[in-house]
């Protein structure tokens, strides 16, 4: 189910203004200091359309850093579910791909009601990345720079106009209600889209095959000494975890405010030493290398086995935030170098 339209850029503000009447509109905004962040949009013309990889990403809107779960007063427990509608404009293809995986994680088996509520009330409008960043590597994973399916609404910038694609009921509704500003795409529009996609694919500076990395790991060719080297560099800042659109570990805290008790969940990171500490003080993952391996194995080995795709969408945020240069892309490149080296040795022997 995918329907396509053309939207003249002059009509974008009108459309967003209409969408804002029914929901909170969130989009990229340039702050006085120069940072570009996702925020609630007051003035539509301030939306920043020339998107870099935004940090923090849009994970916050579906899985907030601090999320109130319950409020208890006397013997009554109130469930704090947010049912407010939201439109998040300007997310990237990699972010949408990540949400697709988060849906499976949070909604399968035991449905997480807090995520589910936010998800059902959020419309994601993604923009195809015509100009990938030097840190991006989604093309090699198939999570970007454009999506073929499973988006709400996807916009492709074709100069003066957007090619608008909608693939969900919510997405189609958000367009059909204002159908008078949308027109049917022509042959030229599709030709232009094809050009833009080709040129975007050609602009990637990083070409990483996580599949190659995975096969190196599962065949035991990446030794513990390699992970030791990675681990000794780690500052345990947790930046990669917090910025990763697929990292969802949380801890739960209770806070007492007079006669009211609030139970909330906050982001946690498996890279922290105390993450697995048992009552009594036993630390199952005391050594840093165990936690480093856990993070990489979870994304590169566990995810493909259980979910069928990598636990990494190639957004490159960990590359930007990691102060130690032991992010996914760098480590993958190092492992690939090991593989290349190995091949060379084999060739020499032959």
């Amino acid at each position, binding site marked *: 189910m995918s329907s396509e339209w053309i939207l003249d850029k002059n009509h974008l503000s009108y459309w967003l203004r209409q969408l804002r009447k029914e929901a909170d509109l969130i989009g990229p905004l340039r702050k006085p200091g120069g940072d570009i962040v996702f925020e609630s949009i007051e003035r539509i013309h301030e939306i920043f359309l020339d998107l870099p990889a935004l940090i923090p990403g849009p994970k916050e809107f579906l899985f907030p850093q601090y999320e109130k*779960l*319950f409020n*208890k007063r006397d*013997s009554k*427990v109130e*469930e704090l579910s947010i049912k407010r509608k939201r439109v998040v404009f300007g997310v990237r293809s990699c972010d*949408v791909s990540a*949400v*697709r995986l988060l*849906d499976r*994680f*949070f*909604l399968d*088996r*035991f*449905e*997480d*009601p*807090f995520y*589910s*509520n936010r*998800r*059902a009330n959020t419309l*994601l409008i993604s923009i195809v990345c015509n100009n990938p960043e030097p840190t991006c590597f989604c093309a090699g994973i198939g999570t970007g720079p454009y999506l073929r399916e*499973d*988006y*709400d609404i996807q916009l492709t910038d074709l100069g003066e106009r957007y090619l608008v694609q909608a*693939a*969900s009921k*919510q*997405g189609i509704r958000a367009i059909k209600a204002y159908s008078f500003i949308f027109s049917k795409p022509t042959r030229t529009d599709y030709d232009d889209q094809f050009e833009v996609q080709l040129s975007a694919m050609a602009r990637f500076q990083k070409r990483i095959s996580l599949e190659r990395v995975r096969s190196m790991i599962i065949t035991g060719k990446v030794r513990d000494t390699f992970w030791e080297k990675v681990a000794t560099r780690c500052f345990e800042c947790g930046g990669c975890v917090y910025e990763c659109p697929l990292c*969802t*570990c*949380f*801890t*739960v*805290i*209770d806070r*007492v405010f007079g006669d009211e*008790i609030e*139970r909330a*969940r906050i982001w*946690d990171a*498996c890279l922290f030493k105390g*993450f*697995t*500490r*048992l*009552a*009594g003080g036993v630390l*199952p993952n005391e050594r840093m290398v165990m936690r480093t391996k*856990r993070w990489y*194995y*979870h994304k590169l*080995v*566990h995810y493909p*086995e*259980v979910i069928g795709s990598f636990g990494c969408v190639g957004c490159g945020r960990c590359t930007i935030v990691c102060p130690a240069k032991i992010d996914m892309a760098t480590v993958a490149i190092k492992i690939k170098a090991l593989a290349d080296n190995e091949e060379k040795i084999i060739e020499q022997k032959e």
Partner: protein
Amino acid sequence: MKRRSSNRKNNIYLPIKGRIESIVPLTEDVNFYRIRSEKPLSYGVGQFFMVSVWGYGEVPISVCSLPEKPEILELSIRKVGFVTNAIHRLKEGDELWFRGPYGRAFPMELSINRDVILIAGGIGLAPLRAAIHWLIKHRKKVRHISLLYGAKTPSQLLYREEFTQWEKEGIKVVLTVDSPEDGWTANIGVVTTLWHHIDVDFKRAVAYICGPPVMINASMLDLYRFGMPLSNIITTLEAHMKCGVGKCGHCYASEKYICTDGPVFSYEEIKRYRLL
């Protein structure tokens, strides 16, 4: 994108209210709690509940009873961390909230027509108490039952008053301690020094193990050497947990979530997933 409709019935994180009906101190730091639930419960041997004290948090606790009375839940809780200390400050009649049951139960049907060995260390006897009650209930279908139980000191042995009852039901109870106290006549040492006390066809028997990781490892290895099939060696693992439903990530180990994929695993699975 597909969205699941949110017409679910229950919030998986919402605990239900229970009331502490009685508290029995079992040892210096372990209390036995009998809890009356507002709603009827159904649970299996080896499953656990997330027990909740508002203002402090939640902890995973194995249930140590059978669901014979659907509104009654029995838990043995050791005072060891922030939340369990808060639980120990509660009195009879106080509220204790919980949600569950979670996790895989012990495959008790494995014990039918087999010899059964129960191996426990310290507080690890709590989930096995439910197993013992199950075995007593199905006594005619089960062959020899032996319990090898170790604790640091004699006064740290749980359920001492129930041992005679268990022996009356034909369960061989063999005890051991690390450091004896006055009047202790039984074994001294780790549980794996007790094998000669039991006369079992290891190749056809089934073992249920719960205790500290070192004890679990050592007993599993011995049983394996005695020829017990890997899939008949059953244990349950402990992990830090915040949610109990495979979301918080704390108990994740080697591609498995202890809470939803376990906590009960066979030795075969433990070897395959390198869980210990």
